[in-house]
C-alpha cells in the first residue's frame, strides 16, 4: 500500500512539473493565437484586443497558470481557441478513435509479435529465426508514413478491401476502417515486441528452472505457458505498456495519412494553430497516459512477481 501511495504521489508530482513546464514553454513560444484565428485576412485592432481579453492572453503568466491549474483540477481545461468548445469535449470527442486505434494496434502488436518472437527464439539460428529477425529489422526501419501510403495504395485503392479514410461509425465499420491504420501503426511496434520477446525467451531458455521443470516431467506446452510466457511476460509487458502510451499520442502520422480524426491529428493542427489550451491539455493527457501506464505496469509487476510484492527487489 505504501508502495502504491508513493508511486501515486510521484505520479502527481510528475504531472504537476510536466504541466508547469509545458505551460511556460508554450507561453514563451513566439506567436499569438489571434493571428491564426483571424487568418490571412485583415482584422481590426478592436477584434484583436477582444480576443486577447477573451483568452486572458495579457494576464501575467503565473496567474494564467494558476487559473488554468485550478480549472484543470476540476476537469475544466478551458476552451479551445479555434473551435470555442470546451477542451475536455474536443478531446473526449476524438479519444475513442485514437483509443480504438491504439488498442487495435496493440492487439495486433502483441498477437503477432509475441508468437513470432517465441517462434524465432525456439528456432534460434534457423531459417525461421533469420526470416523473422530480418523482417522485424525492415519493419523497424520503414518510416511509418511511407508504410501508410503503401498500405493505402495497395489494400484500399488497388484491391479495395478496406475503406480509404475516416473512422466509421458502427462497430463493424470501425473495425474495417481502423484495420489498415492499425497495421501501419503495429508494424514497427510488432518488430520491437518480436525482438524483445525473442531476447526474453532466449534469456529464459538458459534458465535452470526451465530445465528442472522439464526434468520433473512437465509437458513442453505447459512449461512454455506457465513458465516461459509468464516469466517473459514482464519485460514484454513493460514495452507493451509504453507502446500503448506512445500509440495514444504518437499515432499522428498514421492518423494523418488515413484521415482519422484522432488525438494525434488534433495535436498537429492544434500546434499549428497555437490553440494553447488544447495543446496544453494534450501534453498533460500524454504525460498522464505514460504515468498511468507506468503505474499499471508497476501494479502488474506487483501482481505477477511475488519478489516485487514482498519488496525483495526494487522494481
Amino acid at each position, binding site marked *: 500500500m505504501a508502495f502504491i501511495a508513493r508511486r501515486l504521489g510521484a505520479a502527481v508530482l510528475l504531472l504537476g512539473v510536466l504541466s508547469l513546464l509545458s505551460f511556460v514553454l508554450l507561453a514563451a513560444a513566439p506567436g499569438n493565437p489571434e493571428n491564426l484565428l483571424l*487568418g490571412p485576412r485583415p482584422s481590426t485592432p478592436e477584434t484583436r*484586443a*477582444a480576443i486577447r481579453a477573451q483568452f486572458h492572453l495579457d494576464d501575467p503568466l503565473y496567474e494564467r497558470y494558476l487559473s488554468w491549474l485550478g480549472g484543470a483540477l476540476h476537469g475544466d481545461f478551458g476552451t479551445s481557441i479555434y473551435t470555442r*468548445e470546451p477542451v475536455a469535449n474536443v478531446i473526449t470527442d476524438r479519444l475513442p478513435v485514437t483509443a480504438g486505434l491504439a488498442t487495435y494496434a496493440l492487439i495486433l502488436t502483441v498477437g503477432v509479435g509475441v508468437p513470432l518472437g517465441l517462434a524465432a527464439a525456439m528456432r534460434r539460428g534457423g531459417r525461421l529465426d533469420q526470416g523473422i529477425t530480418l523482417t522485424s529489422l525492415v519493419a523497424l526501419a520503414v518510416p511509418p508514413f511511407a508504410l501508410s501510403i503503401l498500405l493505402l495504395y495497395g489494400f484500399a485503392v488497388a484491391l479495395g478491401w478496406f475503406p480509404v479514410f475516416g473512422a466509421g461509425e458502427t462497430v463493424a465499420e470501425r473495425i474495417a476502417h481502423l484495420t489498415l491504420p492499425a497495421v501501419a501503426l503495429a508494424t514497427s511496434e510488432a518488430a520491437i515486441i518480436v525482438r524483445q520477446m525473442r531476447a526474453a525467451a532466449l534469456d529464459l531458455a538458459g534458465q535452470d528452472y526451465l530445465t528442472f521443470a522439464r526434468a520433473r516431467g512437465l509437458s513442453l506446452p505447459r512449461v512454455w505457458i506457465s513458465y516461459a510466457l509468464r516469466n517473459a511476460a514482464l519485460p514484454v509487458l513493460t514495452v507493451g505498456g509504453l507502446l500503448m502510451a506512445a500509440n495514444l499520442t504518437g499515432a499522428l502520422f498514421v492518423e494523418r495519412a488515413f484521415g482519422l480524426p484522432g488525438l494525434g491529428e488534433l495535436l498537429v493542427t492544434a500546434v499549428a494553430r497555437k490553440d494553447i489550451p488544447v495543446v496544453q491539455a494534450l501534453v498533460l493527457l500524454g504525460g498522464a497516459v505514460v504515468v498511468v501506464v507506468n503505474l499499471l505496469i508497476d501494479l502488474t509487476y506487483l501482481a505477477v512477481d511475488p519478489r516485487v510484492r514482498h519488496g525483495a527487489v526494487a522494481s
Partner: protein
Amino acid sequence: KQDRADTLRWALSEVPNSLDIAHGFNNPSTIVQFAVLDCMVTLGKKGEVLPSVAESWTHPDPLTYVFTLREGVKFSDGSPVTAEDAAFSLSRHVDPKVASQAASYVTMVKKVEATGPRTITVTLSRPNQAFLPTAALAWQIVPKKLAEAHPEDLGSPEVGTLGSGPFKVAKFSLTEGVTLERNPLYWGPKPALRKIELKTISDPETLRLAVSSGEADGTADVRPSEARKWTSLRDVTTTFYPADNIAFLSLAVDQGPLKDVHVRRAIAHAVDRAALVQLMTGGHGSQADLFLPKPQLTALYGDAWPALPTYAYDVEAAKAELAKSAYPRGFTLATPYDSGGENVKAMQAVASDLAKIGITLELTPLPSEKYITQRMDHEDLAVQMANLYYSTPDPSEVLPDLLSRASAKPQGFNFSGYGTAALDAELDDVGRLEGEPRQEAITKVLAEVAEQVPYVPLYHNESAFALNKRFTIDAGTWTIDILSAVRPAGS
C-alpha cells in the same frame, strides 16, 4: 438506392470549426455556413449583387442603404426572420465582445437599424463600393435571440446555429463531421439534395483517393498544382473556374537593396512567370501582369484591360536593370517562408531564378504559425510570396489593404510597405467613386504598382470542384452557396 441518389458525401480538407462566420471565416466553415444560413444579398454569375433575404434595396445617398425584407422567410425551426434579426446579424460583427473575424469587413458600417417591420437601414461612415458585395458574404442572418445569448460561441458544436437557408444542421461534430438535411421551410426553390454529409480528410492524397474510390462524392479542395491528377480520375468530373485570387511577390521597399526601384524591376524581369504558372497550376492558370484577381479585372474592364508596363521574363533585361542600381553584382536576402504552406516549391523556383542575376535568397523555413506571426508583425519581410484569395468582385476588398499606408504597419497587409499620400487619396477614390471615374482611379493605382513594383504579380489560377459523375454542379467564381449548386445527375 434512391436515398443514395440524393445524398451527397462531401470531403473537406480541414475541419469546419464554427458555423458562424464571426468565428469561422475560413473555407471549410463557410461552405457549410452558406448552405445553412441565408445572407441579406447574394452574388450572381457575373459577380453582380442580387436579392436574397432582402427582396430589394435602395441606395438613396452614398452613405445609406435601405433593405426591404422578403416576406415569409422563416428559420428552420419555424420562427419568422424579422428586421430585428437581420439588423442584429450585421451589427454584431462590430461588437468587440463577439470579436468577429468579419469585423474588418464592416468597419465602414456606422449604424444598422430596423427602421420598419420589413426595412433595415444601414448607414456608412464613408462611401464604400465594397459594402454591398461584402454583405453577400458577411451578413449571414441568424436569430437575434440566439446570437445575443452566445456572443462568443455561436456556431460551435455545442451551440450550433439556426438559419433560414436551404439546409439545416442535423449533426455537427468536430470529429464525425457535419450532416445537413433539406430545410422544408426554405423560401426558395426546393433543394435538389436531401442530405449532405461532410467529412474531413486533411491529407490531400488521401482526399483524392477517397473521391476516386467513390467513398466521397465531391470536394472543392482541389489543389491547382495537382489538377492533372484529378482530371485523370475515371468516375469523377473536375470542373475548373477562375479563382478570385492573385499570387504575387511582395518586395519590402523600405529597407536594404529593395529600396531601389531598379532592383525591384530587375526582380520582376528575372522571375520566369510562365514556368511558375506551369509549376503551380499545372496549366490551370495564367501569368498575371496586373495586380488584381482575374475575375475582378474581368468584372471591371470586360475584355479591354488597360495596357500598362509589364516585365517579361528576360534575364538580360533584369541584369541591365540591376546594373542601374547600387547593387550591380547582386546581394543576399534572408527569406523566411511558410514550411507548411503551398508556396514552398514556388519559392524555390523564384530563388533559383533570382540566383541567375546574382540575388541570393536564403530560404529559411518557419512553421506556419510562426511565419504568419512574423509576417503580421512585419519582421524580415524582404521578399515574400503570397497567394491571396478574395470572395467579392470588388477591387476595394484588395487594393487598400495591400497599398495604403495605414496597413503598412504591423497587423496590416501591406507587406511591401509602399505608400504615399497621393496613393492613399487615390485609394479613397476607389472606395468612394462609382462607374467610369472609379474605373479610372483603379487603373491609376494599377499603373503606379506597375511602375514602382512594390509587388510583382505572378499568376492567377483556377480552382476546381471534383465531383462524382452521379452528380452535377452549376457553380463558378462567385457562387456563394456551393453545396446547393450540386444536384444528382439527370435531375
